[in-house]
Every structure is written in structure tokens, then in C-alpha cells.
């Protein structure tokens, strides 16, 4: 509620710079974490293209693989891999903050909440690797 007769002292307010996130590691890490979503989206697009190539037969799949071998795509995917791992790790590490799991009245330590996420991640990765690599 604004009181029209209220005394409003003169004050100074500094404008927040567009580059507020540069120079402080915590803020930069946050921006990188948010930006990693773009790379996650890119990998989803690559997977969809892969499925489409698979559907169109061996010739289309060979063309898709050739496209993947393009140095630019290779570099982009290498960067994407880094951001995907960064995305997953930061996500799992934030999970204990969002979930206050209580057992017998006591809150579980952060590591106990994060650990099942990592275990599930490793297990799913192992299953996918087994499917892909068994020949």
C-alpha cells in the first residue's frame, strides 16, 4: 500500500550489469548449468535424426554416420557431452536440496539422497553400454 504522504528519502540504486554473471564463479557456474539445457536439446535432436535415419534404411544410416563424422559436428558433440555430464552432475547434486527426505523423524544427509541418483545413472549407462557393445 502506498501512503501518499510518506517520506521517501533520496536513494541511489545501481543498475545491474548485463554481465553480472561474469567474474564470480558461482554465478558463472549457474549460467553454464542453465546453458547446458541447450546442449541437452541438441543431443535430443541428434537422437531423433538418428532414429529417422534408422527408419529410412542402411543407406540413410550410412549418410547419417558420415554427417556425424564431420569435424564440426564431432567438435559440437564433444562439447555437448561435456555439458550433458555437467547438467547431470549439477542436477543430481541439487536433488538433496529440493527433497528433504525424513526417516524416523531425522532428515537424511545430502549424500544419501544424491547417491541413489548416481547409482541409477551408472546402472542405466551400463545397460545401454552392454546393449550397444555386445556386438
Amino acid at each position: 500500500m502506498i501512503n501518499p504522504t510518506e517520506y521517501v528519502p533520496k536513494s541511489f540504486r545501481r543498475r545491474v550489469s548485463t554481465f553480472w554473471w561474469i567474474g564470480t564463479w558461482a554465478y558463472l557456474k549457474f549460467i553454464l548449468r542453465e546453458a547446458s539445457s541447450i546442449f541437452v536439446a541438441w543431443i535430443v535432436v541428434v537422437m531423433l535424426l538418428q532414429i529417422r535415419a534408422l527408419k529410412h534404411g542402411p543407406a540413410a544410416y550410412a549418410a547419417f554416420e558420415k554427417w556425424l563424422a564431420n569435424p564440426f559436428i564431432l567438435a559440437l558433440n564433444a562439447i555437448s557431452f561435456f555439458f550433458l555430464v555437467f547438467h547431470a552432475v549439477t542436477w543430481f547434486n541439487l536433488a538433496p536440496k529440493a527433497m528433504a527426505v525424513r526417516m524416523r523423524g531425522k532428515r537424511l544427509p545430502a549424500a544419501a539422497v544424491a547417491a541413489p541418483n548416481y547409482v541409477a545413472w551408472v546402472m542405466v549407462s551400463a545397460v545401454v553400454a552392454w546393449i550397444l557393445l555386445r556386438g
Partner: protein
Amino acid sequence: MANRITLQVQRYHPQRDQEPWFESYEVPLRKEWVVLDALNYIKDHVDGSLTFRWSCRMGVCGSCGMMVNGVPKLACATFLADCAPGPIRVEPLKNFPVLRDVVVDTSDFLVKLGEAKPWIIRKTEKPLNEEYFQTPDQVDAYKQFSMCINCMLCYAACPVYGLDPLFMGPAAIALAQRYNMDSRDEGAQQRLDILSHSEGIWGCTFVGECTQVCPKKVDPAGAIQQYKLTASIEWVKSLVLPRGASPR
């Protein structure tokens, strides 16, 4: 250890200055001195016009929050020796309008704090001669959030609040959650509308710095994320359950 250290303190006089500037002061570097002691030394012996807020000198009142070398800190809990060899840059809390020197206008926070209804709400009060019992586990559920001293360091660390001053902010939400988690409280539904607003919990992008700078280990970032889960469940319930089924 050198026996003197330089403090670069931000100065701003609303009637004289267009914008803030820095003044350097040399103060004795004593092992047991905190930044607040240095500021008091300056005020007593060097420049009586230097203006800053303080009260308890022991990290309880939350008055002496300021930026020390760019990080939101309680001046009474930041030792000069830890900042040696200096210079130590002392600025007013970021994201707030500066009234004078390192004093900021806290009105915005106080309005938001009131909106969070940080008190126990009961549908029916017990008679005065009856007590509200709580088990240690029930106290544990909210105790961490109740440690907040309203020092506003979390607001200074929050880039969302800096960019969007309408955002309710970390401490107000953590304090709302402190009462939501209290077994004696019945006001969670009253707080839901203000908290689940786009300028409430959904304004938070989980930078997490509020928790890092909190001198009382309140973890406002955790409170906000936990409440996001609660608000989402309430929203699903309002979709699935017939109107009037969930208690309001």
C-alpha cells in the same frame, strides 16, 4: 603481520553526491578486530560522518550486513586478519537502494516479509491455559529455517532479486516455510497463493548463492525448492480432486 590495514569504504551523501564514491581509511590491524570494529574506529577517531547500521556485535541482530570485498557478510563476523593484507572494500548490500554510505533501504524486504505471514496461524486458538506440545522431531522439521536473523545477505547474493525487484526473495520464502513446517501452524493454505505466485517460489532459478552466504545456515534455496514440490502437489490435487475436496 603488518599493524595497519586499509579499508575502502563506499560513501554516498544523498544531498551532495550524484553517485557513490570510495574513501580510504587506514585502521589498526588487530587480531581480534572485525570489520565492524574497524568501522567504529573510523567513526570514533577519523570521520564521524561515516554512516552504517549495527547493534549486537555478535551475529544475532542482522543489522550490519554489507558487501565485504564483493561478498555479502556480517561486518561483525568478518575478521580483518582474514582479509589481510587488504585493502578491504566495504560497500552497502547489493540489490538495495543506498540511503547513505553503507546504509540501505530495507522497506521492500519488510513488506515482503509481512506478505509471507511469518507467524503461527490457527483456525481455532486453544484457551490460554493450554499448551501446544511438540516433539523434538516436530521442532527439528522447521528449526533450521527459524534461525533467520533477517540480515538480508541472501537478497544481496540473489541475482534474481537484483534483476527483478518484485521477486519475493529467499529469506521471506524461507520464513514462510518455517511456519508451514511448524506442527502448530494451520496457515499453509493462506501462504500458498502468495508463495506459488510467479514472483514467489517460481521466480527462483536456484542459483543457490543465498544458502552459501547465509551466516545462520538457514538454507533458503533448499526451502524454496522444497516448497516448489509442495506447490506442485497442491496444483495437481486441485486438478484431480473435485472442487472443495482439498481443505482451504
